[in-house]
């Protein structure tokens, strides 16, 4: 019993067969998920997989059709306000009061939280790091700048748990990097981060664990290194001229090479694992161009988990 309580208190999020359906439309089905306190948990899935539905159910915005969920040890339906006092939330699609500046809005949120001037100081600090403009009315801000305000409102009161739905939407690559660093620092301070994404690279960069959702079902919870270890790339190599057939055969027979095609001086294929040998062979010829692109998440999921999640 004591062990069970200790286990429960070490969890920031726990769901029990959590299900949410929207009539005939799919939602999420029997999701059993645990997120430990002090970890960054990436929630990965293609668009429409059920990421937002899961997050919105955890936030108490959606009532579960069946099953239940606990956040910070509290039931999400009956203790919604107490939970929100201790968490920060960034929705995927949101808008803010057009006529107000970011700072006016943050002051309002600080009033609601009773977090006072300390949190507003933290907001200024975050704004500086994200190059966010807190003193211009929302209606004059670009999508990316509004997203920064959204990020700040989720973080400025240093919550125990940070829930973010596609947080890097609209941020430029430089700011994405800074934002991910902020998340890592939050984790180092003991805060828990649960964030959804459909971008594998940002999840693998910061997440301690990755949950993968597809068609409303949690198909795997993995170490991000294991996920990326299995990742493959679409490769296209164009040489200055035709290359000898033995080199072509050597590349085709490399470990992890699949879907190999050879047309004139161009090779296209997928490769998983290390590209070291490939580069060594290719470098023996005059390479005009080499493209190595990660496949879209939908394709990756189909390759990893097939049509049947089991």
């Amino acid at each position, binding site marked *: 019993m004591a062990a069970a309580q200790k286990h429960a208190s070490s969890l920031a999020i726990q769901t029990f067969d959590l299900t949410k359906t929207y009539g005939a439309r799919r939602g999420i089905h029997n999701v059993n998920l645990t997120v430990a306190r002090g970890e960054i948990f990436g929630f990965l899935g293609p668009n429409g997989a059920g990421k*937002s539905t899961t997050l*919105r159910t955890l*936030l108490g*915005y*959606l*009532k579960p059709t069946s099953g239940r969920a606990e956040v910070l040890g*509290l039931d999400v339906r009956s*203790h919604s*306000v*107490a939970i*929100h*006092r201790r*968490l*920060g*939330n*960034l*929705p*995927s*699609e*949101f*808008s*803010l*009061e057009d*006529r107000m500046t970011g700072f006016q809005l943050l002051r*309002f*949120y600080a*009033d*609601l*939280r*009773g977090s006072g001037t300390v949190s507003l100081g933290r907001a200024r600090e975050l704004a500086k790091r994200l190059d966010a403009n807190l003193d211009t009315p929302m209606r004059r801000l670009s999508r990316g700048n509004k997203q920064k305000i*959204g990020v700040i*409102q*989720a973080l400025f009161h240093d919550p125990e748990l940070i829930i973010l739905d596609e947080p890097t939407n609209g941020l430029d690559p430089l700011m994405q990097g800074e934002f991910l660093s902020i998340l890592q620092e939050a984790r180092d301070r003991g805060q828990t981060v649960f964030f959804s994404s459909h971008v594998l690279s940002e999840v693998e960069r910061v997440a301690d664990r990755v949950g993968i959702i597809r068609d409303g079902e949690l198909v795997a919870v993995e170490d991000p290194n294991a996920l990326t270890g299995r990742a493959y790339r679409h490769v296209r190599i164009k040489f200055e001229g035709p290359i000898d057939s033995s080199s072509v055969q050597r590349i085709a027979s490399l470990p992890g090479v699949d879907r190999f095609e050879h047309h004139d001086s161009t090779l296209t294929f997928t490769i998983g694992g290390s590209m070291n040998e490939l580069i060594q062979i290719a470098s023996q010829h005059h390479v005009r161009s080499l493209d190595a692109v990660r496949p879209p998440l939908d394709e990756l999921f189909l390759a990893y988990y097939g049509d049947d999640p089991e």
Partner: protein
Amino acid sequence: MIRDVREISTRSTLLPYTRFQYVAHRKTAMLWAIGLTIYCGLIVAIYPSVSDAIDISLIPDNLRAAFNINDFTQLASFLSSELFGVILPLILPFFGIIILSNVVAGAEERGRLDVLLGNPIPRFHLIVGSFAVVATYLLALTGIVGGVVWLMANGLDLDLTARQAFRAGFALWPLTLAFGALSLAMSSVVRQRAVALGVPAAVVFLMYLVNVIGKLAPTVSGVRFASAHHYYGSAITEGIWWIGAVVLVGAGGAHVIFAVIAFNRRDIHA
């Protein structure tokens, strides 16, 4: 411990939210105040030129009864049939309807609810706070209506007491509040702001029509009890009908309670 946190939250968020709403709708209220001042002032100002121009004996009796047309030689009677009998009961409810249709359906539609409810604010604070703001602004607007009418009448040396002017203004408050509460209830149930706005707007006109038809046709006069405008009465000439006012405030309160329950139960979509 958890209970403490919830209690603190309940106490501490209603005031900031309500204050925020006051500021957010201040400009709208000021524009309404300016518009009402100009319109009410004009109606009183044109009275001397129409008081002798219209022969009300030419108007059929039941039509006169339907629109409270009794005696245009008296300003109070003229205002009862025109400003306080038709225009304001049809127009002023829109102040509350427009604002309160936004509280849930409008905010959800525009994606504002997600961020707001990400804060530790109980859902019922949104309902109660917004309604309180609209109720206060409406009280001020109805007071302005009474004040402008009385000042203009005095300025033009017309026969109208302050008591008559202000009770006519304040009698609008329960009526407009009831329609605002209907809009709030709709907003808590439906997902489209257009519906939360459109249905109460249609109800305003429909109820007005029902009240007029009930006055025109004595055989169906019972239908008037289904109209909010029946309970509004004719305060400028007959004084405030307190029972009617209580019915309207009660209906408004019932709609607010319904809105709280409906909002607590509903899903909030992105």
